[in-house]
């Protein structure tokens, strides 16, 4: 992938020009890359390289999450009441509570040591990779909605409407999935294309209205979300529309098995072809944004629409095209759910994918590679959170708080520097992405 732009925020953010960079000493090489010698690593740690800052941000977020877990655990609270004469009990209860929750989180998301020892005693080797597979499955729709939001960010717009676009894609994919009869691979491909088009239409509406009348995309996307929530409920409310025959609940018919995405790791909730679609979409988006003329126009309009217009770029066309592509990506996110798991479409299938896409795009700094990693991190949190809730009874909502805190702390390098007494002043937060306010 395009190493220059994509690798930049992760390897050499010191060189990336931002407003706060003024105090940073000039990097060793003109292109902003530093050789990874021991000296450089030490300096990276003491001055707060962006990778170090990200790790510290995750650490602080987990710490806050730990406080939350402990503060609502009755056993720990009782132990703390008798802190005066049994401080050891209080501390050990705290440690037990937090470590149980976090190790369940880790085992649910990355790997569980138990499966390795089981593999040595004749257990399945695939079981070792089961948590990772869950993580990838959870990450799939988030990566795609994240890309959707990211494309708009790069073109200087804020897409709160990924949820509505998701529904547009989901409706088309579902309809094509049960109403049409096609041979095996072709059917799935037709559904995927249909979902892209379905989402793209909803995105296009926003871009077109914005381009023609100057209406603000934030209002348009919020309103279209609600229109689509109700439209979905409407479509699933009657047998003459899209409700499954013989059902009283608002459920769409199950799609044809020919249209299902094939499994890779195992049956859902394990990673399937949808994950590969997400990676391919990320690669395509990266190429589009960084290597194509259209992408250059997107970025130019995003950086300064006035200058873009003076330079002869048709700004309105960029708005329409960016929202069209963003909608299509959100539609693809829908396809990984509709065709990737066995449950049929319901009125709540859209979940929080659209909104989580915003946080994923922000954490990934609106760069496709960043979005993939951010999506994987959030996927791991979601997968681990479910396991944690089942194992320890700590509600998985705590992972949502931790995710949001990670985004916040990553976006606030000055705060992390202050907390850890780091010397440097650089380290770009995602403000490089969006700091334009409403007047895009």
């Amino acid at each position, binding site marked *: 992938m395009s190493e220059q732009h994509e690798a930049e925020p992760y390897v050499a953010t010191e060189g990336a020009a931002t*407003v706060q960079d003024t105090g940073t000493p000039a990097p060793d090489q003109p292109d902003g890359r530093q050789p990874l010698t021991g000296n450089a690593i030490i300096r990276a740690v003491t001055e707060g390289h962006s990778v170090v800052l990200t790790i510290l941000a995750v650490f602080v977020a987990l710490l806050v999450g730990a406080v939350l877990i402990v503060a609502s655990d009755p056993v720990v609270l009782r132990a703390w009441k008798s802190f005066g004469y049994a401080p050891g009990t209080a501390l050990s209860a705290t440690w037990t509570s937090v470590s149980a929750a976090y190790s369940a989180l880790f085992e649910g998301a990355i790997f569980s040591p138990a499966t390795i020892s089981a593999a040595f005693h004749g257990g399945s080797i695939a079981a070792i990779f089961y948590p990772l597979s869950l993580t990838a499955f959870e990450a799939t729709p988030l990566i795609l909605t994240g890309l959707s939001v990211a494309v708009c960010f790069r073109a200087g717009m804020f897409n709160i409407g990924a949820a509505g676009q998701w529904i547009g894609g989901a409706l088309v994919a579902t309809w094509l999935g049960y109403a049409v009869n096609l041979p095996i691979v072709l059917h799935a491909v037709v559904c995927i294309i249909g979902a892209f088009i379905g989402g793209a239409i909803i995105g296009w509406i926003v871009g077109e209205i914005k381009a023609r*009348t100057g209406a603000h995309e934030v*209002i348009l996307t919020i309103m279209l979300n609600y229109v689509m929530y109700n439209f979905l409920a409407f479509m699933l409310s009657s047998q003459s529309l899209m409700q499954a025959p013989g059902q009283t609940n608002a459920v769409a018919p199950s799609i044809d098995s020919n249209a299902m995405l094939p499994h890779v790791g195992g049956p859902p909730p394990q990673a399937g072809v949808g994950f590969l679609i997400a990676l391919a979409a990320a690669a395509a988006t990266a190429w589009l944004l960084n290597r194509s003329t259209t992408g250059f126009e997107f970025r130019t309009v995003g950086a300064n629409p006035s200058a873009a217009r003076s330079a002869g770029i048709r700004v309105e066309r960029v708005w329409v095209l960016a929202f069209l592509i963003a909608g299509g990506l959100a539609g693809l996110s829908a396809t990984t759910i509709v065709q990737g798991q066995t449950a049929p479409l319901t009125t709540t299938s859209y979940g929080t994918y659209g909104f989580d896409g915003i946080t994923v795009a922000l954490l990934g700094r609106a760069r496709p590679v960043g979005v993939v990693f951010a999506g994987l991190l959030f996927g791991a949190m979601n997968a681990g959170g479910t396991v944690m809730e089942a194992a320890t009874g700590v509600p998985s909502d705590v992972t949502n708080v931790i995710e949001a805190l990670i985004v916040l702390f990553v976006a606030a390098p000055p705060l992390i520097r202050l907390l850890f007494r780091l010397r440097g002043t650089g380290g770009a937060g995602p403000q490089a*992405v969006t700091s334009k306010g409403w007047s895009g």
Partner: protein
Amino acid sequence: MTTTLVTPVRAPVTVSRRYLAAGTFIVLGLIDIFVFGLFAHSGDAVFALSLPGATPKLPAIHVPGALTAYVLGAISIGLGILRAVVDLPRWGKRLTIAIVLLCFLLSLLAWADAGSSVGPLQVIDLLQGTLTASIPLVLGALAGLMCERSGVINIAIEGQLLTGAFTAAAVASVTGGVWLGLIGGSLTGGLVGLILALFAITFLVDQIIVGVVLDVIALGLTNYLYDRVMVPYAETFNAGNTFNTVKVPVLGNIPIIGPVFFDANVFLYITYALIVIIQIGLFSTRWGLRVRAVGEHPVAADTVGIRVMWTRYRNVILGGLIAGIGGAYLTVGSVGFFTSNISSGFGYIALAAMIFGRWTPLGAVAAALLFGFSYQLQTELSVLRVPVSSFILLMAPYVATIIAVAGLVGRVRPPAADGKPYIKA
């Protein structure tokens, strides 16, 4: 920022707004005639002007359903032609919009109630419900306005409503005092505002990021505490205390106006007060002038000695306090109990209402009332068993907003420095 001041990026309006508005009027008039008129059941539409059992009972109004729709449709089409031919002054444009919308609503109601077996349309109920449904939206929009007029984007309204609702329910339940709940909810909203201010103003984090993140944290945190504390200890933490309604002594007895505007709980009166205070404060006081100066051109404001950071901090926290009251309304002001995600997107609707209302208090109130009215209208229409899916009715206000934003409002201009952190040189 400065470049946008010099050469504003303006979407060239490809369709002349004058003809767009005229076309919209005529289309609405045609809907009046060909949908509501032709498909109306024969019989009268009855509008009841007082609640059942109210003491000064007003006679209900009887109108023939189809004829009403025809007449109102004709009026709309006439105004559409007028709008296309004559270039009306600004107040005239607004008046025509108001009349056409009113015609549309009245013919919709006439169609819905004509020949209905359920009974008359309860006009008072509809208007009362409109006001109460608008309270959280108005307060949220005012909160957003306070922040954005000083140059800080507030997407955290949703989070402020949600945490405010949670704290209000919990405090009222633990102490038994609804007023304490209101204050607690307000303070929590203010605390979220303080966090927003801290990250946006001091740590220079992108304001949209902070807002979105605070919303996610608010949802996660309230869900977490709800599951962990409120559900297991419901009698202690979620007992469902609510305010009683207070009827204003003299005004409350006026027919129609009394029950609609002056017979509600304290939240409605607080909302009135805040609308007036903020409207006058922002546009007729020294404080308001300074706030707007900071929001439009912080460098100039700083040069003449206005403390930019302090003004922004103060406004963002004040906005949070207001949104917190709106959140408290959701629990102690109406249902009493906190439930998971009780604000359910009101904060985003409030945000849209603020933008729709062009960052002015009265505009935001009008937009919020539009949404409140639509919610309540949907309830009333489903009572009358209108043969239209309730989902289509629920969709209507959002479609209407899109049409209004695209056709009538168009490009809105936010405060020039909105969303830009100020770094003192």
